[in-house]
């Protein structure tokens, strides 16, 4: 009923195209993360971290140092340089001091970001065409939910990039988005169609987007919590081998703060999801709360994040233990989205698959 099939096909093609570009972006980002920018041997005693742009500007830059002896003549530099070098004023001062071109060190990351922008554009275009093909809200089943959530992760990441150099997350972001799109087009795949009467209500404009936003925010918080845990370990005992890049990431304290702030915002939006869901339930089923499978798990997620916020204010809970609770939180979110949608019977049977 009222479906533009041509646009729908375009949407699917755009998803495949976006996946292809994300795949390349992932590989390119991985070259950055596992490449010299993160792994080259720098002179001892230098506390180098992948800069956040603001920090780099404040402290000015530490310029490149040739560590010829240890790395066989290769020129290495701290990662701060590249960020400041992008800044015209700063780079002028630094350029003559540098014996090498520090920008080159993160060439891969720049290519990766450019590819992510391209993939993100294709991704958003797939959502737009899918929306136009049915002329309704583009979040009425599991596939569309995941399609939009992953797009928001990418857009959020790119916006975040404008404020801080978090390109070390690029590898993880592109990989997870690639996986989610893969699920969208297979396990979650739902042909375009109009919505069922149970979903045909203005609350779908409120409840679902906030739920998607919460998922995205809590996911970003969790991914940073994970990096925080790795970084925390590397602070006491630096990694060797594949995980060497961790040693150069921002300090675990900074990561913890970002992760916490995201989780706090996520808790508020999740609370809103829950309450808006209760309002919708009242007009759909006659009661605002009925312990439906989805309601149970939304409640479980909420309580786990409430526990997380309390844990952070509890003496005796180390930052690492709190971060673990954050990971438990995202596990419940993912469980709520996948297992509950696909395998549990309940009133929220909107998976569409």
């Amino acid at each position: 009923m009222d479906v533009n099939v041509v646009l729908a096909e375009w949407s699917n093609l755009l998803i495949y195209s976006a996946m292809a570009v994300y795949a390349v972006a992932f590989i390119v980002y991985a070259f950055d993360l596992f490449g010299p920018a993160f792994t080259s041997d720098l002179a001892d005693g230098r506390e180098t971290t992948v800069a956040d742009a603001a920090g780099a500007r404040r402290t000015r830059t530490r310029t490149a140092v040739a560590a010829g002896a240890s790395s066989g003549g290769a020129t290495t530099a701290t990662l701060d340089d590249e960020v400041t070098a992008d800044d015209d004023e700063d780079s002028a001062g630094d350029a003559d001091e540098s014996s090498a071109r520090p920008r080159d060190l993160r060439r891969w990351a720049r290519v990766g970001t450019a590819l992510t922008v391209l993939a993100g554009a294709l991704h958003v275009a797939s959502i737009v065409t899918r929306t136009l093909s049915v002329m309704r809200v583009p979040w009425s089943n599991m596939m569309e939910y995941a399609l939009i959530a992953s797009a928001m992760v990418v857009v959020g990441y790119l916006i975040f990039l404008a404020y801080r150099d978090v390109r070390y997350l690029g590898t993880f972001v592109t990989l997870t988005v690639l996986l989610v799109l893969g699920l969208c087009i297979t396990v979650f795949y739902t042909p375009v169609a109009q919505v069922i009467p149970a979903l045909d209500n203005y609350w779908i404009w409120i409840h679902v987007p906030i739920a998607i936003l919460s998922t995205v925010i809590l996911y970003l918080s969790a991914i940073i919590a994970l990096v925080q845990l790795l970084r925390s370990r590397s602070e006491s005992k630096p990694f060797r081998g594949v995980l060497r890049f961790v040693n150069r990431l921002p300090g675990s304290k900074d990561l913890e703060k970002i992760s916490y702030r995201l989780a706090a915002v996520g808790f508020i939006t999740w609370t809103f999801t829950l309450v808006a869901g209760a309002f919708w339930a009242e007009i759909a089923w006659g009661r605002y709360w009925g312990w439906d499978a989805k309601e149970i798990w939304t409640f479980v997620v909420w309580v786990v994040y409430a526990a997380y916020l309390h844990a952070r204010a509890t003496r005796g809970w180390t930052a690492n233990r709190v971060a673990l609770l954050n990971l438990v939180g995202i596990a419940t979110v993912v469980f709520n989205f996948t297992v509950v949608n696909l395998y549990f019977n309940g009133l929220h049977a909107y998976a569409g698959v």
Partner: protein
Amino acid sequence: METQKTTARKQAQAADIGVVGMLRWALRQLTTMRAALMLLLVLAMAAIPGSLLPQRNQDPGAVATYIEENGALGEFLDAVQLFDVYTSVWFSAVYILLMVSLVGCILPRTRQHWRAMRQDPPRAPRRLTRMSAHTTTPLSDATTTRTQEELLDRAQALLKGSGYRTVRADDHIAAERGYLKETGNLVFHLSILVTVVIMAAGGLFGYYGQRVLVEGETFSHSLVSYDSFTPGTFFDADGLADFRLTLNDLETAFDDEATGSQFGQPRKFDAEVTLDTAEGTSQFLLRPNEPVRVDGSRVYLIGNGYAPVITTRDADGNVTYSGPVVFLPQDGVYTSTGVLKVPDAQPDQLGFGGVLLPTVDRNDRGELISSFAELRNPLLVMDVYRGDLGLDTGMPQSVYQLETDTLEQLTDTDGTDLQLVMQPGDTAELPDGLGSVTFDEIKQYAALDVLHDPVQVWMLPAMAMLFGGLALSLFVARRRVWVRVSGDQVEVAGLARGEDPRVEEAVEEIAQELALDSPQPSSTSASADSEQNTAGK
């Protein structure tokens, strides 16, 4: 050594404090953050079984089936209330403990906060350098001299302008802001308590009733006209809303254009109803998500299905039954099952068990199935039974099930079970002079829920409190700031109370505003600018 001593002392105390003391000790433990945290984690885990096992409050039939199929395990699960998780003793225990912990936490904190709000910000500690944020700026230089008074006046005005509460001590200003953070925190926790109380009260005063209404039928709102009715403990039947509801027409539509999983999905359920109340008559479109609200009660369209209209006659042609029979849809293509009981049939009572296929088709194995939910090519297939329907025994019977123990299934001449296969308009003669059956037409029916919850409206202010409180408690920064003149230096120090990402920046900004040389054009706010002008260098 140290810890051993203290535990030893604690044990000695525990022996002395008696029962009341023990209770006080337990309450104190319960109100700690650590206890709240543990209880939250336990609550999350306690809620999970309700999603894994069928629950009585939602599907009592599924619970019965589960217990039957699992024998001893099922009975054990039942004994530990795993089929009634949310009313179980253990789940209640967890959330009641959590509520006690909450109250025990809110009360003293409210007292503390009340006192803090009426007190001046605390004086500066002796060594401000120990504060998390600290900076200095010179009081005077070669060109400009400022007295302590001038500087402190300016600092006080500046801090007041940025929303700090300030107090002047002899050599410094003490300032504090962000009291709303704690207020919000307390309001949020209080709103959780209110929410739990409202949820508990909702079940006590309201009611919940169900009724199936076939097209053309009218439902007079009274206890006897319900198919099922569940009142709350304190529900007063005299307060039942007075109205009559007629289902004029039910229109449904299903998707026959979409592909894959979306084919056959419902697209429209519109019930056209007439509502008669004391105020008059009105027409409504009753749809999913659009309940009809009448006098504090709410009527919901919860389900729908087909009701074949069937007429049975005895051998003489006298009508023994005529009317719609409600069939329950079993799947997405509305393969529906139903039962017709004809106690007035002669010479024996008759029972029919039928399957209705709205759009008949054959599957790969040649069996009859329904391929679409709309009535495109309906077919009714029925088994026929004769004997005693068991309606006179006084035992309640489901209208959707035949008690076949005292019935005998009719057979064809060749000895196989007799099956009536009928399209609308068809009439079938029954063997042995049992009369005939006519399948007249198919009507649609609506399954309605009627609910009443007089305390539900209180959820609205509770939720407003919840969000207001939550936003304040997580986003307002609470911090103390001191500005002190010590010698020829002005010290500015800040102390974050709780999460405050900006405390260092804020101290930096205040120091800049108080600096001798007018700060660079990056001055932070308009109000700060005007402060400088009035301060008049």
